[in-house]
């Protein structure tokens, strides 16, 4: 018995001022008629207690959708979405459930940005990092500085953002569907030197749905979940080198070796909350050795990534998995792919935890 993604839908990542958690849940399942033909629901969401004063979100969503099937919520910071897919895969491959709906939901635009920034910062250790004024962009800036000391040029990080914006122009559900230029970095707001707003993800509300089933569709429109794994890293301040994202690198290396894959050829969605992170990971894996040519990668963050598709925190992993599923079985926006494998990577904070999913057509 295996685990297959057989169906899915997403709403555009955006500032949905008129939509709350329940509205976003309704919007996405409306686009996916067989998404409610399930015997279990796993909701992934990171911040509802903080942004919507809601405990037990999953039960209230099930009641609102008029589907009183068993439901549970998964939360693991920025990796909540992939954690939910991982749980759904276990439920069906163990034989306990037949079809599980994974529903990624996040509502983050109801407050001034500095308030949401604070909620988001709580993915770090509140007592030992956040109280000490340490925030996610501060770590990203320190990673960036260390990479630059190691010879990576500023333009390399900028080129990631430029590429992501370019990719997002052909993705209907992306939040930022416009190109940016290298010049725009000069005027971009500094978050934490040398990291700018252009090096940061786009924060938006989102909802994404996937059906994980114990059997494939009879037609070709399903993919198998062949690998799903998690690795917990060390707190960033305890590391020998802060830019060594060892949990992510270990998992990616393991999965590439096991399936004989090359990131230059395979569909890949990397977690790029801040531009230094994918650059650090690709370099640790042996890519970008002689420079920073992202065009060497055929299907790298086709969606535009967290940078431009956007980052609805606890829902993002479900978006990523949906995007790879669509590329493998059909098309994503105007993009198609001729390869059999797709890889999804998610991490929370500076590699506090990392998750990798491999899908096969």
């Amino acid at each position: 018995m295996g685990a297959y993604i057989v169906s899915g839908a997403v709403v555009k990542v955006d500032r949905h001022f008129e939509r709350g958690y329940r509205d976003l849940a309704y919007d996405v399942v409306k686009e996916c008629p067989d998404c409610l033909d399930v015997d279990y629901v796993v909701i992934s969401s990171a911040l509802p207690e903080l942004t919507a004063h809601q405990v037990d979100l999953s039960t209230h969503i099930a009641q609102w959708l008029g589907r009183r099937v068993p439901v549970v919520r998964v939360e693991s910071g920025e990796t909540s979405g992939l954690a939910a897919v991982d749980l759904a895969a276990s439920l069906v491959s163990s034989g306990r459930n037949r079809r599980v709906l994974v529903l990624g939901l996040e509502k983050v635009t109801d407050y001034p940005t500095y308030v949401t920034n604070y909620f988001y910062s709580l993915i770090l250790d509140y007592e030992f990092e956040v109280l000490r004024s340490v925030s996610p962009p501060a770590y990203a800036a320190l990673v960036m500085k260390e990479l630059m000391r190691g010879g990576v040029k500023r333009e390399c990080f900028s080129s990631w953002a430029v590429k992501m914006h370019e990719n997002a122009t052909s993705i209907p559900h992306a939040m930022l569907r416009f190109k940016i230029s290298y010049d725009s970095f000069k005027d971009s707001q500094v978050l934490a030197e040398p990291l700018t707003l252009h090096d940061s993800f786009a924060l938006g509300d989102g909802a994404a749905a996937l059906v994980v089933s114990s059997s494939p569709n009879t037609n070709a429109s399903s993919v198998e979940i062949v690998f799903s794994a998690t690795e917990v890293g060390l707190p960033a301040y305890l590391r020998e080198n802060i830019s060594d994202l060892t949990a992510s690198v270990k998992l990616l290396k393991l999965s590439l070796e096991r399936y004989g894959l090359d990131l230059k050829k395979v569909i890949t969605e990397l977690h790029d909350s801040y531009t230094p992170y994918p650059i650090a990971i690709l370099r640790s894996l042996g890519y970008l050795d002689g420079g920073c040519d992202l065009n060497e990668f055929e299907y790298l963050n086709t969606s535009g990534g967290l940078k431009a598709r956007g980052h609805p925190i606890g829902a993002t992993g479900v978006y990523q998995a949906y995007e790879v599923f669509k590329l493998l079985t059909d098309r994503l926006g105007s993009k198609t792919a001729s390869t059999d494998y797709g890889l999804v990577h998610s991490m929370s904070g500076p590699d506090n935890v990392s998750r990798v999913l491999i899908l096969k057509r």
Partner: protein
Amino acid sequence: MKLSPSQFWRIRESQYRLIITECGSCGRKSVFKRSVCPFCGSSNVKHVESEGFGKVLDVTKVMYRWNSSDERPPLLVGVVELDEGVRVVGEIVGVGDNEEVKEGTRVEAVLRRYASDDPYGVIYYGIKFKPIKTA
């Protein structure tokens, strides 16, 4: 009230003092008073107090506002290596207009305000770092 006096009271030793956890199994040291070594998981640990001196390994000037406290940007956040060979992350304060904090700058631990509720509420204090003035 968003701050809890009892939450902070529980972690007072790690916030008011620089406690180092030394592992009797793997020999590695980590900051904060811990029951378990974060490197190897052993609970064969003992605690010693740092002298409070060290050097900046790296620092970033944080320019954006990310909380509602009265800490307004810019602020300096860095990784400090204590003379005991242990790393800790935190804010660097008391830097004069003409001073520069960079890799290698010597710092000492000082007790400063971390957060507060409102003008009449709870105030948390804890360790930050200050450059050591050289003549």
